[in-house]
């Protein structure tokens, strides 16, 4: 079978629309414009070492880590309950978790503004119950809430799919050998579910650390994340150099976290270089 040339059109496409754009961003991040062309510079990366920008990076990572932890703590029990149920109900539950993702995510995030507002739905209910009002819109808490809301299914689903594949005989064997429920969970179920946990963590952390929409809507634009900073460089301040440098830093951040995750991952997904 000598049909490898069939890939040629796509290779051309890839070079043009994947490889070249990446190199353009790399290029803009290390050059500055002078009267006669371009000059190599490290200035864009140097600018990043300002406490203001470092703080933005730290805040992005911290908020993403907090959201990931909350997703894990809330999602794992849910995945366990889902995996333990009988078949017919399971399918409906699975659908119910997937279904919200079919609605435009900007709109769902926007709906949280309606819920969280000072005179919003949640506060209306709270005041009816004579409870103190909740005022978290345009704060870090609201951003974390938005991240957890948007990415929780990505934690539940991979854990669920690993848990439901665990051989019941192994669990029964552990119980027969005298393990109580907690020991069986700690020594058998949890270690076996680790691949699902790891892919859940990746699937929540990555989009959370790079988002600029959630922080803009629920954070009111006053709490910058690195995504907002990049958007601003390209769309309002027109500083491509700095924006490109930030993008390169973000790519490195993603590569780094992928690297850390893949060290723990048992089966690799196919991309050997990553």
């Amino acid at each position, binding site marked *: 079978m*000598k049909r*490898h040339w*069939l*890939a040629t*059109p*796509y*290779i051309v496409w890839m070079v043009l629309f*994947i490889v070249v*754009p*990446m190199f*353009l961003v790399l290029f803009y991040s290390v050059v500055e414009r002078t009267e006669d062309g371009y000059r190599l510079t490290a200035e864009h990366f140097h600018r990043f070492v300002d406490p203001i920008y470092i703080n933005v990076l730290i805040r992005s990572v911290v908020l993403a880590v907090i959201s990931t932890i909350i997703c894990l703590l809330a999602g794992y*029990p849910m995945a366990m*309950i889902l995996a333990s149920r009988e078949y017919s109900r399971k*399918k409906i539950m699975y*659908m119910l*978790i997937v*279904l*919200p993702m*079919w*609605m*435009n*995510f*900007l*709109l*769902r*995030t*926007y*709906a*949280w503004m*309606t*819920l969280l507002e000072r*005179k*919003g739905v949640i506060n209306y209910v709270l005041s009816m119950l004579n409870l103190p009002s909740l005022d978290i819109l345009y704060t870090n808490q609201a951003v974390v809430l938005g991240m957890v*809301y*948007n*990415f929780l*299914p*990505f934690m539940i*689903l*991979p854990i669920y*799919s690993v848990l439901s594949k665990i051989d019941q005989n192994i669990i029964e064997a552990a119980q027969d050998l005298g393990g109580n429920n907690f020991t069986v969970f700690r020594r058998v179920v949890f270690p076996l579910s680790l691949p699902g946990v790891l892919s859940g963590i990746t*699937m929540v952390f*990555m*989009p959370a650390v*790079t988002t600029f*929409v959630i922080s803009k809507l629920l954070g009111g634009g006053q709490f910058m994340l690195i*995504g907002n900073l*990049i*958007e601003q460089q*390209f*769309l309002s301040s027109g500083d491509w150099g700095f*924006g*490109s440098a930030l*993008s390169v830093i*973000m*790519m490195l951040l*993603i590569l780094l976290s992928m690297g850390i995750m893949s060290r723990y991952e048992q089966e690799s997904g*196919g*991309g050997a270089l*990553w």
Partner: protein
Amino acid sequence: MRFLKKSYVFLIFAFLYAPILVLMIFSFNESKSRGNWGGFTLKWYMELLHDKQIMSALYYTLLVAVLSSVIATLIGIIASIGIFNMKKLPQSIILNVNYIPILNPDIVTGISLMVLFIFMKMRLGFVTLLLSHITFNIPYVILSILPKLKQMNKHLYEAALDLGATPMVAFFKVILPEIMPGIITGFLLAFTLSLDDFVISFFTTGSGVANLSIVIYGMARRGISPKINALSTLMFLCVLMLLIIVNLRMSKDPERRLKSGASKENGRYISSIGHDI
């Protein structure tokens, strides 16, 4: 314990569905502001059809989704067969490059494409939007088709040739039916990814061409028109109905379900959407 489990499940679903419920309820709200309730009305559903901005956004959203997923699927089929028949080293290089748009944060994909288009002096608009969508769709199509090619019996194609089929006939009669489930998954994946994309579209479009996500983002500051709520309520109900129909059909026909490995495919399908946000 049972009660505890049930209430936990209820709590999680309440959390997931609260915003959606609010959106739907407010599509029947007489008052325009998102805060207060002014009585029940259907006027937003009526006005929806006459809103030029929303209708044009809907048109572009659907047009780009259909075109980009069809083109990406066609390129993806051809490319998958080519990649499958490659030697080990070039194959792994190509697959790694193929992974870049999936692994890269959307914002980086978006700005790098924008930089490319501006660098090539292309006007940002419909063409650049379509090109970007095709670019981020193809990798998902290829990743859906390749496993099917690997599962296929290698000798089937040769047998077809031995029995006198031309390569073309062998492709359409033997290979294509074998990889069809992968093609369909890839196509649906591409279609929904394109339909729901905001970040990449946001950076690569211009001059009056906007999809629904971009229009919604633009409105979010001033307050989203209840007409958008009405539209998304309708779209949500369409999806819900489709899912119910597909589900009923599948549960009636257990053999079909086994054949297409529906649940497994769904799993991958969902996991890939994650990147979109």
